[in-house]
């Protein structure tokens, strides 16, 4: 178990990715080097008008430089205030937190199922895998959104050399439909030829559908969940989910990454 830092970091870059998405890079974060894909940080805004911290997945790190990037979508008060931060602004970061993804074996075909704002941890996972020598063509990166505007950082994804499958509900980019429909088509069309592993992060409905796909087709893998998180470190019990085997798990510290089939979604 990593001992998280709880310290001030500084915004060194804020990039408007359009359609309410922003990429923020924080510097002077001593534990940047220990942030693995699937880890999240718990961000305290400088003004307690946003009283509780907000969990944000790590989207990338610059180890040597002690920098971490998060990618967020403005949805409410916390994310709005984050998007208004200016270079040099101080922000307190508690992290890294949670259980990160288990990396797949190097030869495995990997299906990534990213939905909207669930995309950042999968971006980091894919980046890390490629950096560690996973053949990018084995990574099938499905990325779904309402419409083209919800699919951000396309050039960055493509640069990894992986197989990029954008999916939009209005057909304005990539294939038309739900991302999990595209994934199901992929699984059924390849059935028997490959034994893939699946990683998913996105809205509730998408996670539920991905979990069902996994169980239906016997595809293992992991999902990163969201929940309201007052503390982020396991002490408030506010973030629980029901386990299929009975009982509760805390999303913040028993997760946010859970095995497919583990949680009742």
């Amino acid at each position, binding site marked *: *178990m990593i*001992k*998280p830092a*709880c310290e001030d970091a500084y915004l060194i870059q804020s990039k408007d990715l359009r359609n309410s998405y922003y990429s923020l890079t924080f510097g002077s974060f001593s534990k940047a080097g220990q942030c693995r894909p699937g880890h999240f940080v718990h961000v*305290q805004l400088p003004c*307690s008008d*946003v*009283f*509780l*911290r907000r969990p944000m997945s790590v989207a990338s790190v610059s180890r040597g430089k002690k920098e971490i990037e998060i990618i967020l979508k403005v949805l409410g008060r916390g994310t709005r205030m984050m998007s208004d931060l200016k270079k040099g602004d101080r922000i*307190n970061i*508690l992290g890294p937190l949670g259980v990160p993804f288990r990396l797949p074996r190097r030869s495995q075909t990997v299906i990534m199922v990213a939905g909207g704002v669930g995309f950042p941890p999968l971006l980091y996972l894919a980046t890390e895998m490629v950096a560690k020598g996973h053949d990018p063509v084995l990574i099938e990166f499905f990325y779904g959104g309402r419409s083209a505007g919800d699919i951000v950082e396309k050039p960055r994804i493509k640069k990894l050399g992986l197989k990029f499958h954008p999916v939009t509900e209005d057909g304005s980019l990539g294939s038309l439909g739900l991302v999990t429909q595209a994934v199901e088509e992929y699984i059924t069309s390849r059935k028997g030829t490959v034994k893939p592993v699946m990683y998913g992060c996105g809205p509730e409905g998408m996670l539920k559908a991905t979990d069902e796909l996994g169980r239906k087709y016997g595809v293992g893998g992991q999902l990163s969940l969201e*929940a*309201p998180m*007052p*503390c*982020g*470190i*396991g*002490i*408030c*019990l*506010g*973030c*629980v*989910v029901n386990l299929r085997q009975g*009982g*509760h798990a805390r999303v913040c*510290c028993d997760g946010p990454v859970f095995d497919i089939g583990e949680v009742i979604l």
Partner: protein
Amino acid sequence: MTPDMKVTIAGVELANPLMTASGCCGYGEELANLYPLSKLGALVTKSITLKPRLGHPVPRTAETASGMLNAIGLANVGIDDFIREKIPFLAKQKTVVIVNVAGSAIDEYVEVSARLNDQPAVDMIELNISCPNVNEGGMEFGANSRLTEQSVAAVRKVFSRPIIAKLSPNVTSIADIADAAAQGGADAFSVINSLVGTSVDVDSWRPRLTNNKGGLTGPAIKPVALAMVNAVYERSRLPIVGIGGIATWSDAVEFMLCGATAMQVGTALFIDPFTPVKIVNEMKTYLKKKKISAARDLVGKVRKY
């Protein structure tokens, strides 16, 4: 000269007056990953009930202005697993261990407390007679003098070490309830538990908590907590553990001035889990600056008009 931070509650000496509040530090394991628990005056566990409880469905927390609502619903491992799985860890920690006890009937308080009496690692118990989730005919125990006295008296018979009665703020006169708890044999008071509150989503028209209402905590309630600590202090000679919105050293000093011998930090742990440790350090600086040799010299020293 370093100020003396030691305080004594019902004969039990604490290294310093800062505790973590029940329900805000689990059973101590997570905080122990951040700092040695010996830095705390005491740790108060999540409320323990006879049977394990999962609590209410999520959402069971909601953010409010300078505070939060929770209706966790006394989720806990139950007394059996607590003794088996949590006590061994707690026994090794170099801090005072206070186990918070809850129940939905007096028998349950008694049974859990009796089991804890056999555990020497448990230095004191804190009776949660004030949780909005503990009902007898829709009424909190802690909202009624008779029930308060009866439940404390019943536990008194089976628990031989100090009993802290945790009082509810949702009453007309907290001092009257304190009297009743003292009558029942309490050795100290914790003041306060959370205020009943609610919040509604104006889009869905749904309460923000599946329990429809919950407990308000955090800096928002500090003025109420301070007034209640002082009301109990003026009524009773038993020591008081002040709780409610404590997040900084000056909050803690305010509570001591109003009559608290020790303090618990709850919600602030969610914002910064190091809060009690920081408060202890900064309080030392304050005491030095004020040339006060011992923290306990602050207790009740508010200079009223």
